């Protein structure tokens, strides 16, 4: 076996191998360095996997050497490669970016545990996207959720604990629902391998159990993905987590649940349940539309910048849900590209917020007056991200919304309505982004406020701008993101490449 053959396992194995080491060796600065090295290695491996997958190839790696329905296989196609790239990329960017701020917020004593949890979180998320086994998804979902709780509760504010508690409750409910669904599927098919499930579910005569399973799995994943009425755990979790953690989980964590939703609904249920498109549309379109409006409106009235961005994530997840619900190549491509692009945009914006928080010691919008002058580069990065959220051309947000609109137009009058909804919510995004810009650029700082004159340090600014520029690059050259996404969409829908 050459190294090339081992790449799929390496993505996760590197992280899982390093996590205990980072936990055990309590030297100064070592946990961070080990974590960064492992995550960056994993990112490089994921990129090379993506390079293979862009040719439309699916890699199957048999764990332990046991063949598919008996053992566990890794299943890497365009979609998983794209997601693996996003997760490991976001994780490395956040780690490098957060080198200093994490050292401040976490402290020497808890650093080994924290960075081990970080590695485990990355490993859990990557493990979920590359595996080809429905139960294995649950195992790695547990790893990622538990470690996310640790990461969030490391926040300096005591309220981090309460928001972690909320997240634990909701996350456990979501994961349990998923497990119940998988249990039912196992009961009617006798297999856990996703490909095998997709084939065997179609042969089940009485589909009552399959329907219930589909319901449980979809609702459970919707909770984990913070689709609108089930989003209540998210804003506080984002707000009180350490800043670098927010960057990471905002960019990667909810997207993975959406990924699993796509994977399960399209690869398992699509071929086997009659009218599954209709059910999916009925389930996700109302939720998506509600999410678009509610998320934007809540963001408009929000005063805390981190929570504002969290509500904006709620609305952006609405776009993805809409794209998934359309069951067309364009819609699915739009959804997948938006998962990727939104990860980039939100990651960059939260990085900018972390820079602001470093200097202003607060993330209340009202206190950021004058930030445009004091921290021009940071605010410029924030504005670039904001434009991306709105969907202005030449930003990554435009690409994905373009595909969503294209997909909606295929759907007749309902589609026209959806286009209108997308446009209105973009306008709402203008409002909440403008709210921040107005304060930062056009309002004089209060007299009694401590004046901020210094720009964020270079170690934070440079990663921020790298992420922002990567976003712009993906807006100009869409061959990687859209290329992978359209291959993924075609594969999932069974259309010839």
């Amino acid at each position: 076996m050459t190294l090339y053959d081992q790449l799929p396992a390496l993505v996760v194995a590197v992280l899982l191998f390093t996590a205990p080491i980072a936990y055990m060796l309590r030297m100064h600065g070592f946990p961070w360095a080990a974590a960064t090295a492992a995550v960056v290695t994993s990112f490089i491996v994921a990129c090379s996997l993506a390079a293979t997958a862009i040719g439309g190839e699916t890699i199957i790696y048999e764990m332990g050497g046991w063949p598919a329905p008996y053992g566990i296989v890794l299943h890497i196609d365009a979609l998983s490669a794209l997601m693996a790239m996003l997760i490991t990329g976001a994780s490395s960017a956040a780690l490098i970016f957060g080198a200093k701020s994490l050292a401040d917020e976490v402290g020497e004593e808890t650093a080994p545990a924290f960075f081990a949890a970080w590695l485990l979180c990355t490993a859990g998320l990557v493990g979920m996207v590359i595996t080809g086994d429905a139960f294995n998804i649950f195992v790695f979902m547990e790893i990622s959720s538990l470690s996310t709780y640790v990461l969030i509760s490391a926040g300096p504010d005591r309220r981090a604990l309460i928001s972690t508690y909320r997240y634990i409750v909701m996350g456990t409910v979501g994961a349990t629902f998923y497990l119940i669904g998988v249990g039912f599927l196992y009961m009617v098919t006798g297999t856990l391998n996703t490909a095998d499930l997709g084939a065997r579910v179609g042969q089940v005569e009485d589909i009552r159990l399959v329907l219930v399973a589909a319901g449980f799995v979809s609702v459970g994943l919707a909770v984990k993905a913070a689709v609108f009425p089930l989003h209540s755990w998210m804003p506080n979790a984002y707000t009180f987590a350490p800043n670098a953690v927010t960057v990471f989980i905002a960019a990667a964590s909810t997207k993975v649940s959406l990924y699993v939703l796509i994977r399960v609904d399209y690869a398992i249920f699509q071929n086997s349940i009659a009218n599954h498109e209709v059910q999916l549309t009925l389930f996700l379109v109302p939720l998506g539309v509600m999410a678009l409006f509610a998320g934007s409106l809540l963001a408009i009235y929000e005063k805390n910048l981190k929570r504002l961005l969290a509500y904006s994530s709620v609305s952006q997840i609405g776009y993805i849900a809409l794209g998934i619900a359309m069951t067309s190549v364009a819609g699915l491509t739009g959804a997948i590209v938006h998962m990727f692009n939104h990860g980039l945009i939100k990651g960059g914006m939260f990085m900018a917020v972390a820079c602001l928080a470093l200097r202003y010691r607060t993330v209340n919008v009202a206190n950021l007056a004058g930030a445009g002058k004091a921290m021009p580069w940071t605010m410029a990065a924030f504005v670039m991200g904001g434009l991306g959220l709105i969907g202005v051309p030449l930003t990554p947000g435009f690409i994905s919304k373009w595909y969503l609109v294209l997909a909606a137009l295929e759907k007749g009058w309902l589609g026209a309505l959806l286009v209108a909804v997308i446009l209105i919510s973009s306008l709402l995004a203008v409002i909440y982004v403008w709210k921040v810009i107005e304060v930062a650029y056009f309002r004089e700082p209060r007299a009694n406020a401590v004046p901020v004159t210094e720009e964020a340090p270079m170690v934070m600014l440079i990663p921020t701008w790298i992420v922002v520029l990567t976003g712009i690059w993906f807006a100009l050259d869409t061959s990687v993101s859209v290329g992978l996404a359209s291959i993924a969409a075609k594969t999932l829908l069974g259309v010839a490449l």
Partner: protein
Amino acid sequence: MMTIVFSLFLLTMLVIVAVAILRTENLFTAVMLSGIFSLIMAANFFVLDAADVALTEAVIGAGISTVLFLGALALTAEYDRSPPVGTWVPLLTSSALGGVIIFATFQAPRLGDPSAIVHQHVAPWYLEKTPELIDVPNVVTAVLASFRGYDTLGEVFVVFTACIGVMALLGRVRPRRDSIKEGEFKKATDNLRHHLIPRVVGKMLVPFIVLFGLYVQFHGDFGPGGGFQAGALVAAGVILYSLVEGGVRGRELVPEWFSSVLVALGAFTYTSVGVASMLMGGRFLDYSVLAHDPVHGQHLGILVIEAGVGMTVAGVMITIFHAFSRRGIR
């Protein structure tokens, strides 16, 4: 038939106890009832022939979790103060969910029906191939440790993560300051040394528990058991010692740094086996390449990873217990 009668009997009790746990406001009562709950559950697993699960449930559910619950209870109030309002929506939701599940299971195959699909697809393969490929009598061990070894690796890391999480929570809040001088307080509340009978009997049984744990660890290929159960048993021995002799002496026996390193070391051992099999030219976690003979390699791999699992589980239980007992309450 008999299985169904016993199972129904036990499950009815289970439901009654579960409802009682929900209804009680006294947390101590809830802890005790959940002890009964796990005992019923374990007996039921046993009736259904799932001996490995029953052993786990017995050791962890009935033995250790009561101790840990009491440790947590010592840190909080004894009464549940959740507001009585707003119980309707959750009640309706969960009844609806229960209804849906029951509705769905009308179509499920009957209990123990050999023609059920579950028993037709992968299970026969496991039963048929295990003697030839892995050659251990306990097929459950073969499936857990080798065929689905990647899942078990994941579960070990779940345990590791949970340990980090618990330590993050318990290590965070400062121990409550008490007016009594630290030493005197510790002496009076930390141990059962002045109770002669528990002291003698407890200390007498510690070696037997640890010995039995080792037996379960290395006998897992042949009978019910394996790393998870063995780790929990060894931890139970240490916990018993700490209860009798006091947390201070317990931490002298197994220092905190040691138990927390043990958790990581177990997970590390498991992953190392995977990496070693990669380096020796196989897939990740493919134990066949570890020795010249594939079956022998499987034996070796299973032995090592079970040891890793045992280390992690024992470490995590002891770490959590120490974290509770150090909080100045015990």
